[in-house]
């Protein structure tokens, strides 16, 4: 497993938070995914060995939680909320716009490799619907026009100002 030194350090540290090693499964999966971009089967076995559990115990988690992926994604991960409040404010149209802008379907890597567009469930910012997360940043009131603007910025490689929480 070719993990960065900093990742290994964080992994060693977080395991000490728990009286039972297995509890560190989610933190380790997050660290590994942040390091590698996704969770490979090598990573699953490495994490299982590290936590002294069986590989199937880690595999069960990777497939249960939607935030973990087993394949690489585009350079940016666009997650559009589709739950009720955002939907009635136009979330589905926002998502379609992103897909149109990058000529991509849901859950795929766009042809230019820039983005993966996914639907997600309620992001707990319903008052500013429709809401979108791009990687770790939250963007509020993302209607079709703003989706277009954000897409332009992504394609131009420009930094995109985050919505304030």
């Amino acid at each position, binding site marked *: 497993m070719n993990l960065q030194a900093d990742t290994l350090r964080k992994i060693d540290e977080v395991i000490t938070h728990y009286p039972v090693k297995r509890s560190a499964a989610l933190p380790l999966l997050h660290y590994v995914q942040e390091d590698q971009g996704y969770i490979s*089967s090598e990573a699953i076995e490495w994490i299982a060995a590290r936590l002294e*559990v*069986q*590989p*199937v*115990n880690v*595999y*069960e988690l990777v*497939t*249960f939680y939607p935030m973990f992926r087993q394949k690489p994604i585009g350079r940016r991960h666009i997650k559009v909320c589709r739950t009720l409040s955002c939907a009635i404010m136009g979330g589905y149209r926002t998502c379609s716009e992103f897909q149109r802008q990058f000529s991509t379907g849901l859950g795929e890597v766009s042809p230019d490799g820039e983005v993966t567009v996914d639907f997600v469930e309620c992001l707990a910012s319903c008052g500013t619907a429709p809401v979108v997360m791009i990687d770790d940043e939250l963007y509020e009131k993302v209607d079709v026009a703003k989706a277009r603007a954000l897409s332009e910025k992504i394609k131009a490689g420009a930094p995109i100002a985050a919505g304030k929480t």
Partner: protein
Amino acid sequence: MIQPAATDLITVNIDGKEIAVPKGTNVIEAARRVDVDVPFYCYHPKLAIVGNCRMCLVEMGMPAVDPATKAPVMDPATGRQRINWSPRPTIACATNVSPGLHIRTTTPMVKECREGVMEFLLINHPLDCPICDQAGECKLQEQSTGYGRGYSRFIEQKNVKPKRTLLGPRVMLDDERCILCSRCVRFSKDIAKDDVLGFTDRGSYTTLTCYPGRRLENNYSLNTVDICPVGALTSTDFRFKMRVWFLKQTNSIDTESSAGANTVVWSREGAIYRITPRQHDGVNDTWMADSGRVLYKQVRDPGRLVSVRVAGAESAVEFALRAASELFAKGGVAVVGSGRSSVEEQFLTRRLADAAKAGTWLVSRVGMGDGLLISADRNPNVRGALVTGLIAALPSPTLDSLGAEIDSGAVRTVVSVGEDLEAAGLTAAQLARVAVIYLGTHADATSAAARIVIPTLTVFEKHGTLVNQQFRIQRFFKAVPGIVGATDDLTVLAGLVAAAGGRSMGTDVGTLWPAIAAGVPALATMDFGNIPDSGLLIDGAPWAGLPFAEGPALHFKPTAQQEAARG
């Protein structure tokens, strides 16, 4: 039978019937005792309780008491204490008896719960019954008939999941049939200690799987097939071979070790199709090892001995016994009995040794015990040989001392009851020096070299008893007729006893047992007919100091003395 008034019995009321059961009993088991059937899928008496199928939902009520005074509140209509019935149903598997507990299983609410759960289980279930091995012993079939609504309202598309996945060499998985009860996962993790199964994905798309690259191949994998309530996990060996309703069930015992796991042999028209475990809470719970299940294949094995041979020519039992008699008359006889023989056969073997004034040997087979149901002693019935007096000490793995007696010329005739003497250490030269009378089921080096060969029966083709590591005598029964050309062991042995000049003995378990009871002190009170299905424990004290090979296993702990003797 009158229950003793024990202080840890709790009285509960199930559908109006009162019963007292031990503390810690759950409602499913308590209901069983008053012939009330509570349906379930995920519950299993030997596995942890998870309560996820929701099929065992029942109505629960507790006697009403005044909260302030704790006095009972009476119901004017019945004149008895009023019962506060809970508006929510409760799962019977996770509800343990408590004083005053009332359960109802025949109300409209319970009926709706069951119809609801059945409907939910069937909406994504594939219509595989015509091609599914589980048909005839499928809980979904049984419970939808008994408790389902009888029609479907589902018109959407069913979920599609992997079918026909080879989970391991002996187990086939069909994920669409799986109802996610998790029995197999619990068994693999907690009993077989092989945590290789798990659930992936989520919600209704949850799928049972093995970790990719791993297989379900431990020596207890077929137990998951037994406990799977539907046809999701099936045996590759039994796949598509026979419908279970055609099969006859015969009780038997697993002979691969002295654990003595109880089994059921399933056969039809003289052919055996599979072996499954039989529940015995004192021996094997509801489990058996995979390796014991394939033993039925020996019945139709091509190496099966099917003709009596005397001096190389085909013959008949009558002439074989006459030839044996001539050999016995010359003296110098040795008898090699077997730890795989039944108690009845060992009793007759001893009589033969007495009549022929022969020394007795046994061959031991010791391996690694697996801590579960394969003990370190791979002979199922060494203790039977001790109890009947056939041997006085534990056998050794080789027949060196017999070999010495052959070399010295003291032994000129060897009777072998199913033991390959060469495999047991005698050289070809030694074998050539003696006349061998061989009783056995399969061809081996000894049967090829023997002067007299009399084919006998496998454990599946005869009745008998075996004594397991717990000193428990257990019965096995004839499942299929003996192969043509073989003779029942008791008939042959009794014939040899007579050929050696001994008394005439009974040739079946019924007529032989009075002599066994009379001749073997430990078995004095018994008769083949009155040994219960759960077997009887014999007092092992006379042999307590012997260094038995078995270590701790399921329902077995060696005594301190034996631990010390083993060293």
